[in-house]
C-alpha cells in the first residue's frame, strides 16, 4: 500500500498512557515517526485543536493527509496499514476477547485506579483500592486464558491487550508508591507481576515507558494544580 510510505507524526505527551500505546504500536511495526510533544499545561496547540476538534485530546496520529484520533482506534489503524508483526490476533473470537478486556480497562479499571488518588477519606480510599484489586484478579485470570502459557496476552509477542494494559503500568506503579500498597503482587497476581516486567523491558516499550519517579513528580505537580485551580 503506497499510503504506508507517507509521513507519520504523533501528537502527544510523555506522561500519557494513551499516547504510549500509539508509540509502542509504531515501534512494533518499525515505523519511523515524528513525535510532537504537546505542553498541555500551556494550552493546546493549534495543530491539536485542528486535528482533533471534537475531543481536543492526545494522542493524534497524522499520517500523510489523514488524522486519526482515540488511542485504541489508532492502534487498530496502525495494525491494518502495516500488516507485518500483527498486533490483534487473527481469530475473531480472540480479537473480540482482546477488545473486550481493552474496553474493560479503559471504561472501568483505569478510572478506578485514578479514583484512589482522588479519594477523600480512608473509607473511600479503601473502597477504591478494593475495586482496583478486584479488577486485577479478573485480569490475572484473563492473562491465563489469553496467553495460554506464553509470555504475553498476545502469546509469544506483545499484542493489543498487552499494549492497552501495559501502558497503565507507569501510573499503577506511581499509585503503589503513593499508597504504599503493592497492587500487583506474588500472592494475588503472580502471573501479571512477571508479565509487567517482561512488558516494560520489551524493545518496543522501554524507551517510551516513563520512569516511575518522573511520573510521580508529575502526578504531584498535577495534583497541586488541580487543588489550586477553581473548578469551572
Amino acid at each position: 500500500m503506497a499510503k504506508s510510505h507517507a509521513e507519520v507524526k504523533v501528537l502527544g505527551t510523555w506522561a500519557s498512557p494513551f499516547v504510549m500505546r500509539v508509540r509502542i504500536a509504531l515501534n512494533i511495526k518499525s515505523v519511523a515517526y515524528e513525535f510532537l510533544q504537546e505542553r498541555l499545561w500551556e494550552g493546546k496547540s493549534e495543530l491539536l485543536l485542528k486535528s482533533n476538534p471534537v475531543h481536543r485530546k492526545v494522542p493524534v496520529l497524522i499520517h500523510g493527509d489523514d488524522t486519526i484520533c482515540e488511542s485504541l482506534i489508532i492502534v487498530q489503524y496502525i495494525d491494518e496499514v502495516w500488516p507485518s508483526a500483527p498486533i490483534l490476533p487473527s481469530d475473531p473470537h480472540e480479537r473480540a476477547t482482546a477488545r473486550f478486556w481493552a474496553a474493560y480497562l479503559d471504561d472501568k479499571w483505569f478510572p478506578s485506579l485514578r479514583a484512589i488518588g482522588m479519594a477523600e477519606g480512608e473509607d473511600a480510599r479503601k473502597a477504591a483500592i478494593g475495586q482496583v484489586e478486584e479488577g486485577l484478579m479478573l485480569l490475572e485470570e484473563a492473562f491465563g486464558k489469553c496467553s495460554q502459557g506464553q509470555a504475553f496476552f498476545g502469546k509469544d509477542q506483545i499484542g493489543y491487550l498487552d499494549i492497552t494494559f501495559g501502558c497503565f503500568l507507569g501510573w499503577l506503579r506511581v499509585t503503589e508508591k503513593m499508597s504504599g500498597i503493592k497492587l500487583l503482587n506474588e500472592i494475588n497476581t503472580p502471573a501479571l507481576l512477571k508479565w509487567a516486567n517482561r512488558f516494560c523491558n520489551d524493545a518496543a516499550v522501554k524507551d517510551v515507558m516513563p520512569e516511575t519517579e518522573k511520573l510521580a513528580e508529575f502526578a504531584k505537580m498535577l495534583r497541586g494544580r488541580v487543588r489550586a485551580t477553581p473548578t469551572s
Partner: protein
Amino acid sequence: MSEGEVKVLGTWASPFSTRVRIALHLKSVNYEYLEENSLESKSELLLDSNPVFKRIPVLIHGDNKPICESLIIVEYIDEVWSSGPSILPCDAYERADARFWATYVDNKFFPALKRAVVSGSEETKRASMAEVEEGVVMLEKLSKGKAFFGGDNIGYLDIVIGSVFEWIKVIDKCTETQLLSQAPCLLEWGARFSSHEAVKDVLPGVAKLAGFGLKLKAKI
C-alpha cells in the same frame, strides 16, 4: 467458524441490543432472541454470560465463550460471517473514521440524548440538550452527499447512529424542539435507514420509546 447456534440476549428498547440484531440481519444469520426484562432483575443466563459488566447485549455463538459489548459484537459478526455484505469499510482510514464516530455516539452523543429525555433536573436537561444540538449538527454534516454513512449500503456507522436515532425523535416529540427539521439530510437518511429490510422489524418505534423514557424518568 460461522458454524454453531446463535443467541442474542437483549432488550427491545436498547439501541445496543438493536445494533447486534441489525448486523445479524444484514448477514442473513438466523438467531434466537432472548428478551431480558430490563427494568426488573437480571436473568441467570445474563449474569453467567457477562459477569464483568452484567449487561446486554450478549451474543452466544455455539460453544464459544459469549461476546459482550455491542460494538465488539458487531465487529465479531462482520469478521465471522465474512461472506455476507461487509459492515465495516474496507479502507483502513475509513474504518478508523467510522470507529471514531461510533465511540463519539456511545461516549458522548447517546448519553446526552438519554439524559435530555430522562433527567428530572432542568439544569442537566439544558446542558444535555446543548450537547445533543451540537451532535446533530455534526451528524448532519457527516450525512451529506451519500445515501448512507457506509456509502451506497448500510454499514457500521449507519447501524451505530441508526440504533439511537429514534431517541432524537423522542426529544422532538416530547419537548418543543425541532432538532430534525434543522437536519434535513439526517432526517432523510433516518427514513432510508428505518425502512431497510434489516432494520425495520427491530426498531422500537418512537411512541413506545417515549413511554419507556417516561418509565426510566420515574425510576430516577
